[in-house]
């Protein structure tokens, strides 16, 4: 065998393995997508069809318009599940809460991380232990005391309580990541600015923050994803159906007698959509983020 054929063979083998592995790993998501555009009768056919024979947007229409009429058209009876009328409200709640959490936790930890890398004061080691411990504490530990605290503040069942609850998960790893990023920015850049007479705040705002932007983006994405994906805290804190975030809301679809899989898979796709867009936009930054330190998950 010549060198050239051996090289070709190796490439073919590599690509075959890669494609097989990718297909296996992506199959669940692809299957959700396929199911979400199948009409109800085809969805429950055995053996299942791998590609839909007829495409339908009924499930998405039901979620986005909140009208359950299509149930009767497709299956001939009105199921006892709650109509999907709250889906858009849940989506909106998830966006508001995730953005709020991200802004607060990234803002607060950016300031703190800058302070920790640029100034020395007693107790700095404590903060690195603290954020490491934050990684280790299971959420089931602090969710109940937090619930009691929110109840005392009169915040339960309101979106701000979720933001405050999520901060307790995101803050340790935001500090950890931002800390790593600021350590990577050389002090000389700032010293040049300071020598030119800029104040510490000007240096921070105009020189350091732009340099730290990739880190801030990566950290924000992680914080957004963690808040978007939470179920436990929202499940304990929230009560009324219109105030739920997507995660807890969508699980309500299981509570009826009849389970509507089309609706479920369409919600799965819509819930993953914002994350896929973010992921595609900033994949490069994310790898940077992972390089900087472990991220809770």
């Amino acid at each position, binding site marked *: 065998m010549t060198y050239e054929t051996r090289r070709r063979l190796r*490439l073919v083998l590599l690509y075959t*393995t890669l494609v097989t*592995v*990718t297909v296996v*790993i*992506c199959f*669940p998501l692809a*299957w*959700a997508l396929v*199911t979400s555009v199948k009409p109800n009768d085809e969805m*429950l056919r055995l*053996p*299942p069809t791998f590609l839909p024979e007829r495409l339908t947007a009924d499930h998405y229409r039901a979620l986005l318009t909140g009208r359950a009429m299509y149930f009767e058209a497709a299956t001939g009876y009105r199921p006892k599940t709650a109509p999907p009328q709250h889906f858009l409200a849940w989506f909106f709640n998830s966006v508001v809460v995730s953005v709020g959490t991200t802004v*607060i936790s990234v803002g*607060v*930890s950016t*300031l*703190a991380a800058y*302070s920790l890398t*640029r*100034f020395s*004061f007693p107790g700095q080691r404590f903060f690195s232990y*603290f954020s490491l411990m934050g*990684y280790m*504490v*299971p*959420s*089931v*530990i*602090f969710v*109940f005391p*937090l619930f009691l605290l929110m109840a005392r503040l009169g915040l339960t069942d309101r979106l701000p309580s979720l933001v405050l609850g999520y*901060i*307790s998960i995101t*803050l340790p790893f935001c*500090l950890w990541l931002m800390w790593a990023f600021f350590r990577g920015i050389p002090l000389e850049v700032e010293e040049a600015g300071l020598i030119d007479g800029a*104040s*510490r705040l000007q240096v921070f705002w105009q020189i350091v923050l732009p340099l730290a932007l990739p880190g801030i983006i990566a950290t924000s994405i992680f914080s957004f*994803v963690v808040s978007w*994906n939470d*179920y*436990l805290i929202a499940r*304990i804190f929230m009560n009324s159906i219109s105030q739920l975030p*997507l995660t807890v809301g969508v*699980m309500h679809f299981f509570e009826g007698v009849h389970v509507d*899989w089309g609706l*479920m*898979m369409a919600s*799965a796709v819509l*819930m*993953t959509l914002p*994350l896929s867009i*973010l*992921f*595609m936009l900033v994949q490069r930054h*994310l790898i940077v983020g*992972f*390089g900087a330190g*472990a991220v809770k*998950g």
Partner: protein
Amino acid sequence: MSAPYGRHGHAGSGGAVALTVFVPPPRRWRLSDRQVGVLFMVPFILVAAAFILWPVLEAVRLAFYSKSPFRPTMTYVGLDNFRYLFGDPVFWAALRQAVVWTLSSTILQSILGVGLALLLHQAIRGINVFRGLLLFPYMVPTVVIALIWRWMFNPEFGIINATLLRFGVIEKNIYWFSEPTWAMASVILLNVWKFTPFVVICVLARLQMIPVDLYDAARVDGASAWQRFRDITLPQLKAVLSVVVVFRTIWTFNKFEEIYLLTRGGPGTSTFNLAVYGFEQATANLKLGVAAATGVVMLALLFTGSALYLRLIGRQEE
């Protein structure tokens, strides 16, 4: 505007003057470095104290009280909550299941993760597309995966049973979530699917730092692919793997949603881990004290485990 600070006048007003002359801002806006340092820490300290430190301490205190979530009263009961835990066979079952769940998930993730990372480390065309696709599961919400898993593993209409039947692997439908072993297998599979990318990313980042000359030298010496992996790659990955394994073990041990959303801990209590057990004590039995005590036991186990592990690693390095 007069320019009291510079001979050349205000930087913008000179027009022809190319020199930039600095105008110091009014003195009252200047904060000393020390003040800035403290000021920047204040928000973090306040938020962390209120929403991280306090809840954890409060949870430890709660472990010694009897408390219902809907009544304002709290009664001190000493060690009763812990006595309750250690006398409850479900707690011991949950602990055993937590060990099975944690160990099998972590081992599978590590092996698959290293394998995938080696595959994705190849410098071939289009590798970035594969990297993106294979890392994506890590971003997918657990709720979404649970929904998809419930659909794929549905006993009557699910694709898994249909495929297994068609290829003659099974003769009748498996009721995945009604049999303890299959339920445990399906939650472990979900966890492995979602978190293997984490291992991949960490290992991949480390692989890219191994100097290429090491491999070239080995090749010249006639080392086989397996020998190169065993003698160069593995030793280089040892440090990152030991950290990744600790983190994965801790986080898997703490996981709640991955189990609860798929099986609710069932059938019966056969997929309970300690987190699900604590959650059920708080929400179904309304015993917040017992839930908090479960949390304290979890923390104690985690700290002992990490301390032992660190000592083990330290001894190996000596």
